[in-house]
């Protein structure tokens, strides 16, 4: 950012010089000549010049050149000579925080505090009720600004951002919405919505569930509590009562066991995995029939997929973590 500010001022300066053979302001020209061909040099950095590693368009801020100085228009104001005008011309950075260590961050911080001061009187809602937003992490912000922002400072800024987010959504001004956009992640939690399940013409709702290495596909139809797993009855397929219960747990916990018939295809893994994969599949297909049951099903623990899997074996270990027996020699 600082380099950008610099280049903007340099452009001003260079434009003001125009086609003059002898530069008046030597300092400026020197800088300009130096920085022209590579255009990456940073003025206040002792380290070698480098670009930001991430060059995605969305992260890099757009570059805007400074408007040219129109000498003709200025000259008509009664000034006789360019020379006198140039003498009064001073290269000023666009931002007053240009000479600070983290100019963009400082700008952001000041802008947010000003905004907050402006809208401080608007009604707020409790943070719990505020819209859920995934804010940029400090690493993402650092990459965006290319400045070594300190964690604590960043959190102070985010405190203001969250306070702005708590403004009652019915009265939130447009400028606040625009300002907050800068601190949101590109993708928000609710952005990707799964396709809603459908009940087909035969009244079946399908659900897929996985656990460990098992996967299950369940179809749920209205009925009176019959369960078929791979064409067998529940008791034939699962010898343990525990497995049977966990297989239909979503229905049992919501007291829907006698309202639906289930048929399931399940494959892979062992009995526990299959039973719990079935639990997930049945829960999902139940949610197609009755979406309002989601909180109840979630409380029963049938919505979240259990991501645990067998840990891989490592080289030099006997198992995933076990080390070979220590031998003295």
């Amino acid at each position, binding site marked *: 950012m600082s380099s950008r500010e610099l280049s903007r001022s340099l452009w001003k300066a260079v434009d003001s010089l125009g086609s003059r053979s002898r530069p008046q302001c030597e300092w400026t020209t020197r800088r300009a000549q130096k920085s022209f061909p590579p255009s990456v040099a940073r003025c206040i950095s002792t380290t070698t010049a480098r670009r930001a590693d991430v060059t995605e368009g969305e992260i890099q801020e757009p570059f805007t050149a400074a408007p040219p100085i129109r000498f003709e228009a200025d000259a008509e104001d009664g000034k006789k000579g360019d020379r006198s005008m140039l003498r009064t011309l001073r290269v000023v950075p666009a931002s007053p925080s240009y000479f600070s260590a983290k100019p963009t961050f400082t700008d952001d911080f000041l802008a947010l505090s000003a905004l907050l001061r402006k809208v401080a009187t608007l009604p707020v809602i409790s943070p719990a009720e505020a819209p859920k937003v995934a804010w940029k992490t400090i690493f993402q912000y650092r990459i965006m600004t290319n400045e070594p922002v300190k964690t604590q400072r960043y959190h102070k800024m985010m405190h203001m951002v969250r306070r702005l987010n708590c403004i009652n959504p019915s009265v939130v001004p447009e400028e606040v919405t625009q300002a907050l956009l800068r601190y949101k992640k590109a993708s928000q939690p609710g952005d990707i919505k799964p396709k809603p399940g459908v009940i087909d013409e035969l009244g079946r709702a399908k659900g897929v569930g996985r656990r460990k290495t098992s996967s299950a596909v369940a179809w749920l139809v209205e009925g009176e*509590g*019959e369960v078929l797993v791979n064409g067998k009855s529940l008791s034939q397929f699962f010898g343990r009562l525990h497995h049977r219960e966990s297989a239909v747990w979503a229905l049992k916990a919501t007291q829907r066991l006698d309202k639906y018939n289930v048929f399931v295809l399940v494959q892979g893994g062992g009995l526990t995995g299959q039973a719990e994969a079935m639990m997930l599949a049945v829960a999902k297909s139940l949610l197609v029939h009755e979406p309002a049951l989601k909180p109840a099903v979630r409380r029963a623990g049938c919505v979240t997929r259990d991501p645990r899997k067998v840990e891989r074996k490592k080289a030099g270990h006997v198992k995933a973590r076990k080390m070979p027996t220590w031998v003295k020699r």
Partner: protein
Amino acid sequence: MPPSTCLRSLSQLSLDASTHRSIVPRLLHPRVACFSTSATHYAQAPKKKGTTAAPKKGVKSLNTKKGKQASGGDSGKRPAQGERKALRKRIVLSNNNALEVSSLKDLSKESAFSEQNEGQVMGLPEHVVDALRAVEAFKTTQGWSLFRRPAVLMRKEAIQVAKLFKEVEDSASGQQKKTLRRILSGERMSGKSTLLLQGLTIGFLRDWFVISLPEAQDIVNAHTDYAPLPKSEPMQYTQDTYTANLLQQILKSNGSFLESAKLITKPDLPLPLSAKATLKELVALGIANPEVSWPVFVALWNELSQPGRPPILLAVDGLSHMMGDSKYMSADVKPVHAYDLTIIRLFIDHLSGQKQLPNGGIVLGATSQSNAPTSPALDFCVGVAEAQQKTPDNVPQWNPYKKVDVRVMEALKDLNSEKSDFDVIKVGGLSKEEARAIMEYYAESGMLRHQINDRFVNEKWSLAGMGNIGELEKASVRLRL
């Protein structure tokens, strides 16, 4: 020059040292003269550390008393011979801690056929329980020991069986006496053996002559003696001890009839028997002399075939054991087919319809899912018969790559023909009403401490695999969480 053996030992020693690292210290540490290795060879390997702890101070470690067992060994008394088996085979039919169910009614001769019993739990009368115990109809795996006294649920299939008895009795007055044959099939723990027991109960209640082979496995597993039957072609084999035992069971269970009935025919027995003897004396002769038990059984069978005798119920459990080779060997060391054993031959002849019961009767065979050798022919025939009842247009085909037992296929071929009195009774799950009835019985017995409402019944019904009664009992009575 040293002898060559000495050199060989030396080289052996160095070889050992290089190959077996672990032995090296053992062999090399005792600084013996290198040319003599005998000491190291014969020296006992030092015991591993930590295997035996040093004796404590003041504790006498030397066991000087004669005949005294070591304190660490098993000093408990060994069970006497046969005690373990007796414990394993013990049938407990009552539980003093269970409550008496006041509403429990007994089955009786009159109410055995009544259709009002459907979906009700009925108690078994005492004399029937004794008879059933005599024929070993109660199994150790069944939950009789959980309740005050034996009681059975009259489910849909039980009513179906009762109707068979009624049909046979109705035909008894006419000329054409009926012989009905049924195979009970169904998934594991679905109550096939219990249904067979219910059939036996009705048989005892209606004063039929009941012959029950409690477990087909006991006949074919070569645990009892056998002998070739003289003048049989092809060779058949009798099992004297088993037959004598069977006669004893028959005597215990059908005692009253045997006592009252007199001999009509003149049996050709090697032992003397008065012409006016009762059947009981005939049977007692077979029990006392196992070597003539088979001729006695044949004589008894002939007596029962005379007109005026009661209808016969032939029952067997574990049908697939008799559908293949037995464990017996013939004289030329070939396995004997189960059908060549005389008792099984008698049963199969009647099951296949080759012979009819002259006074009418029922032949019942129950399959087993937990203790059953593979019998593709039986499985196929039963599967086809079930499919014909359920989906007549989708009947399984014989897999030609399976090994077929021709004799079994021949015996069971009636099962797949439309018009015969040989069929399969599919023992499925209970209906919800039946499940509710049996669970109320559990609750009244105090074995199920839960309010019996629709929700609870439905839940257990589903978890028991659509009303599998064994699973239902397991889930509600045996397994208390």
